[in-house]
């Protein structure tokens, strides 16, 4: 195989860059998640939150789950 150095460098840098970025996102998520109450992490599976509810967009749960939904002001 010709130009093997270039081929390896190209593939390696691509996946190294993506891998480093994924590591950064995962590490930052691990750091920030404990600082946010459980119900405010909207992707978590919880019977109280309907993620398919379009009115939920930009907010933090439906009216049933949070009567004092402070973040809805920031829509």
């Amino acid at each position, binding site marked *: *195989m*010709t*130009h*093997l150095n*270039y*081929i390896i*460098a*190209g*593939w390696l*840098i*691509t996946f190294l*860059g*993506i891998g480093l*970025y*994924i590591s950064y*996102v*995962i590490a*930052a*998520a*691990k750091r*920030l*998640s*404990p*600082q*946010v*109450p*459980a*119900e*405010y*992490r*909207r*992707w*978590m*599976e*919880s*019977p*109280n939150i309907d993620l398919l509810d379009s009115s939920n*967009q*930009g907010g*933090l*749960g439906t009216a049933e*789950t*949070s*009567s*004092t939904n*402070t*973040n809805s002001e*920031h*829509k």
Partner: protein
Amino acid sequence: MNQNKDIKANTSGAPSGQNSAEAALSAGVADCWGSAAVDAAGTDTGPFSTSSRNTNLFGLLILAGFIAVFLLAFFVVEADRVQGDVVRLMFVHVPVAVVPYLAFGITAIGSIAVLLKRSQWWDVVASSSAEIGVLFGALTLITGSIWGRPTWNTWWEWGDVRLMTSLVLFLMFAGYLAYRRSMTDTEIRARRSAVLALIATLNLVLVNRSVEWWQNRTLHQQSTLAEGRMENMTLFTLMLAIVVFMSLFGWLLVQRFRLGWLAHQIETLGLEAQIAQRRQQAASGYREAVTQLQPGQSQSGQSQSGRVEK
């Protein structure tokens, strides 16, 4: 960071109302406790990540896709007649170069939504997408340079319009991210960075059409994908690689959005906690001032009345 520590201290356990900041947080989220992630003692048991079951499954599918692309690119696709084996760089460079179009396109859509709806949700989407776009923009420039060395005998050509417009696009969105970091007010940051993103997105057209508009000022070939000049297996592998990289972008966007949303929550909750704390301090300070002033007020009242009598 101190603000973050305060929030961490206040949300790590059950809301007990020990201090004003905790009380403020508890007031906002008290009726949110009790989900599956909070145990009987009220302790948040996680998971502390941006992953969910669906994203994990999607991630595994993408990983399988990458393995397939790798096997096809190195063991099935034959070397190019002109370029030889170095053509295998195409299976990373071209898909990686496609992703910024998608990423910055979503940033533009999010920015328009920010300006129209004043939505913080869209602001997080736009900034998350832009960050991934910048990552892939950098990878495009690097892999293109590596591919250019054996093909064009140069790492970089300053006169190439495709290279220069791609570099300008990368720098503009890197500037967009830097600008966002310099702003603290979320509303102003969202609006101004949305305008900046829309201006930067105009460059996408230049990047895409540059090889058509300035044919004699680029080393890049014109678009040949639709002409069907590639061999079937090469074309299939390239298309698969594009699909897999675009799926990876989707996965990354979900993860990065969730991270951005966490940061947004911390900003919002921290601000509200601080406001509540200030209000309580002001109220208690006012009460203290009133009790201290009461005897003095009566004295001054007497003297005033004395002056009036005089």
